């Protein structure tokens, strides 16, 4: 077969192909092969391969040459119907050369045809561009509309599309027509053109340079769904692949237009819209605030609550994750029910969705401590503690730690839902992964205090063999945030008398004393109370306070008390009475108060010169400090002479009753005539009005009156 493909013009070439009975119409004139359904928002490619199989038959006509057999294999459409081509195949397992070449040669033939058509399309389009551009700029809107339809058709095929996008004037004309038209079909056609162009980088650039972005943003207000879809999809492609597009969309107030679109109901449309929001808001605080002010959190939470399309849920969760680091968006997302909505997607089959929801929940959790309706989420999180996925454990423990923070209801829920056991197992599995261990220990610390089931939680830790594992966390190498959490937990565990012996057996006391010594030495190195030592973000004064506080409660047990005293800790505790930090003073006075129950320790405390600082502490505004100090003084003065006791009494009088008229009245009326010290008290003891005037009386005004007591132990800096 002979062809003269490279010599005739396009129309002739097509005619020639058709005359050779291939019956192929590329559609370049007729458009017959171009089919697009505007209602179908998905695109797909269909490839048809034709394979010719030549069957071996009884030889009827043996005059076919090799050339004829090759032609029949390459161009089966040229063989007259009814003709039987004889195969020369002898061995059924071995194909002849012609048979082997049949399919590859078919494919080559199709490729050549496509190349020819491409060339045709490109040439035609190039010649048509200037004319079409003029028509798009015409004043007559009917002309503009028709031109737009033609250009739309052309941009559906690659060759002609290339020609269009290479003409800045053409693209600008399309943009202008789209912006200015009042005709819906023209708007649809022009939006479709830009959408078609946006599938290639060159097209994106041409749209960007022609001011297409502001025009597309304006199209987001269109009442036509198809225009909306073309606009958002084109913008999405620009945001993904065109440098500068994000800034341009923001400048064109794109966010203000996109957020209200979250009310639409088409899942795929919403998926693209939310992905646009994520691209625009990631790392951009201003964008996040714009989303907030346009009702973004409510719209996004609504989607999480009401849709099942996985891709949409995933894209939406990504936006929420970006917003969840914004201090302004966080409370809005929580108030909109974000915690509960995200919690609904932690048990599905989509791993990526679950992980995004978990990270988002973790970010939000510190703003959700007072939220109600968390029961279901808490239960799911306790279940996730059995996972081996480190990311899942990190998130679950972190969220639980925050949701149980100062929330008695949540604490009770988690305790009753076997949360203690699950947390202990998570700690055991996590090993040295601090991102899991720290929040898990904090959660246990929360569960073991300040709610009705705290005692149950304290028992549960012991019953699930948690005490040795927890005490081991005090070993070196020290990661101070974990150490701080553990000493607080040990303090709570020691409140339960049954835990005292197991804590002792696990070696808690020497570890706590070592930590106290190290932290105190580090804190002393700075020499000034205004300079605080931080290690891993933790102040050493916090470790001093925490470890002393734990020893204070452990000292309630007599055997522990003896062990603590035998470790030569009394001098250090007396030194801590001079600390500028009230909390440290309080726990130091508290542990000395317990130690002073033993006579030997009481004498040692006295010999370390504790009386002087304790006398000062009687005047503390902190009732706990004053009480412990007084108790220690009472205990170390048991065997003292009456002068000493008088002095203690006078100090106490000045501190406790000076401006306490009701207590005066009560004392006046209710004290019995006989008491253990009446014979020892000197009747000529001077009244306190004559006491040296350097006493700070006014500080204690009303301090012992319950009505005026302002709960110092609820302050965050005190316990």
């Amino acid at each position, binding site marked *: 077969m002979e062809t003269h493909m490279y010599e005739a013009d396009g129309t002739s070439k097509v005619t020639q192909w058709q005359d050779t009975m291939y019956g192929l119409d590329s559609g370049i004139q007729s458009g017959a092969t171009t089919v697009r359904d505007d209602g179908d928002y998905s695109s797909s490619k269909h490839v048809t391969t034709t394979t010719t199989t030549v069957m071996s038959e009884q030889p009827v006509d043996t005059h076919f040459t090799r050339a004829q057999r090759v032609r029949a294999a390459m161009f089966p459409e040229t063989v007259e119907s009814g003709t039987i081509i004889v195969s020369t195949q002898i061995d059924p397992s071995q194909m002849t050369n012609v048979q082997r070449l049949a399919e590859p040669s078919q494919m080559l033939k199709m490729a050549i045809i496509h190349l020819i058509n491409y060339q045709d399309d490109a040439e035609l389009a190039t010649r048509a561009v200037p004319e079409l551009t003029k028509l798009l700029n015409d004043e007559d809107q009917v002309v503009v509309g028709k031109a737009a339809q033609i250009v739309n058709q052309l941009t559906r095929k690659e060759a002609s599309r290339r020609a269009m996008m290479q003409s800045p004037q053409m693209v600008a004309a399309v943009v202008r027509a789209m912006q200015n038209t009042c005709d819906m079909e023209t708007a649809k056609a022009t939006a479709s053109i830009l959408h078609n162009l946006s599938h290639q980088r060159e097209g994106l650039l041409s749209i960007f340079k022609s001011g297409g972005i502001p025009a597309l943003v304006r199209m987001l207000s269109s009442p036509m769904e198809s225009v909306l879809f073309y606009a958002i999809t084109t913008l999405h492609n620009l945001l993904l692949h065109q440098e500068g597009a994000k800034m341009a969309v923001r400048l064109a107030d794109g966010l203000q237009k996109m957020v209200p679109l979250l009310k639409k109901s088409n899942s795929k449309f919403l998926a693209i819209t939310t992905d646009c929001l994520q691209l625009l808001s990631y790392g951009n605080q201003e964008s996040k605030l714009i989303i907030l002010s346009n009702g973004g959190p409510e719209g996004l939470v609504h989607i999480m609550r009401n849709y099942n399309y996985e891709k949409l849920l995933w894209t939406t969760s990504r936006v929420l994750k970006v917003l969840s680091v914004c201090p302004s968006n966080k409370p809005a997302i929580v108030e909109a029910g974000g915690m509960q909505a995200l919690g609904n997607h932690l048990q599905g089959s989509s791993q990526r969705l679950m992980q995004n929801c978990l990270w988002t929940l973790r970010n939000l959790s*510190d703003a959700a401590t007072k939220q109600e309706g968390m029961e279901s989420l808490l239960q799911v999180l306790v279940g996730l503690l059995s996972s081996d996925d480190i990311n899942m454990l990190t998130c679950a423990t972190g969220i639980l730690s925050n949701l149980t923070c100062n929330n008695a209801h949540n604490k009770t829920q988690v305790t009753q839902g076997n949360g203690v056991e699950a947390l202990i197992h998570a700690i055991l599995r996590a090993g040295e992964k601090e991102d899991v261990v720290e929040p898990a220990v904090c959660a246990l610390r929360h569960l073991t205090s300040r709610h009705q089931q705290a005692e149950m939680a304290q028992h549960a830790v012991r019953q699930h063999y948690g005490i040795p594992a927890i005490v081991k966390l005090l070993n070196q190498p020290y990661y101070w945030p974990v150490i701080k959490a553990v000493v607080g937990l040990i303090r709570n565990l020691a409140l339960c008398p049954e835990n005292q012996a197991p804590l002792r057996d696990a070696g808690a006391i020497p570890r706590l004393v070592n930590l106290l010594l190290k932290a105190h030495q580090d804190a002393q190195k700075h020499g000034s109370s205004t300079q605080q030592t931080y290690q891993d973000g933790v102040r050493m004064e916090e470790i001093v306070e925490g470890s002393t506080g734990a020893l204070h409660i452990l000292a309630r047990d007599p055997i522990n008390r003896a062990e603590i005293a035998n470790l030569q800790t009394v001098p250090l505790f007396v030194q801590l009475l001079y600390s500028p930090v009230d909390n440290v003073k309080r726990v130091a006075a508290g542990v000395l108060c317990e130690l002073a*129950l033993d006579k030997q320790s009481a004498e040692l405390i006295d010999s370390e010169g504790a009386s002087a600082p304790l006398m000062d502490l009687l005047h503390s505004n902190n009732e706990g400090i004053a*009480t412990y100090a007084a108790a220690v003084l009472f205990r170390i003065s048991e065997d003292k002479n009456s002068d000493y006791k008088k002095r203690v009494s006078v100090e106490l009088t000045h501190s406790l009753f000076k401006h306490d008229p009701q207590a005066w009245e009560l004392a*006046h009326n209710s004290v019995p005539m006989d008491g253990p010290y009446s014979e020892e008290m000197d009747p000529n003891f001077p009244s306190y009005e004559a006491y040296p005037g350097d006493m700070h009386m006014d500080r204690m005004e009303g301090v012992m009156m319950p009505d005026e007591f302002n*709960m110092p132990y609820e302050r*965050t800096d005190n316990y």
Partner: protein
Amino acid sequence: MNREEAPGKSPEDMYVQQKVRVLLMLKKMGSNLTPSEEAFLRNYAGVVHSQMSQLPQHNIDQGAEDVVMAFSRQEAEDRRQ
């Protein structure tokens, strides 16, 4: 005791008042008392009774308040799929 007396009652009385209050506060905070201290409180039952109503109602030794952990300090981009 005579109400018309000046507010400066005997040091012994004051001492008892102070000690009763301190011991009751200690009990409320969960601390232990010595046997002699327990006996002291029993001896001054009348004073104990009157002092009890003046004590703060809350348990003031509950330990450190819970503190949230701030996780949302930085954004982390996830792989686009």
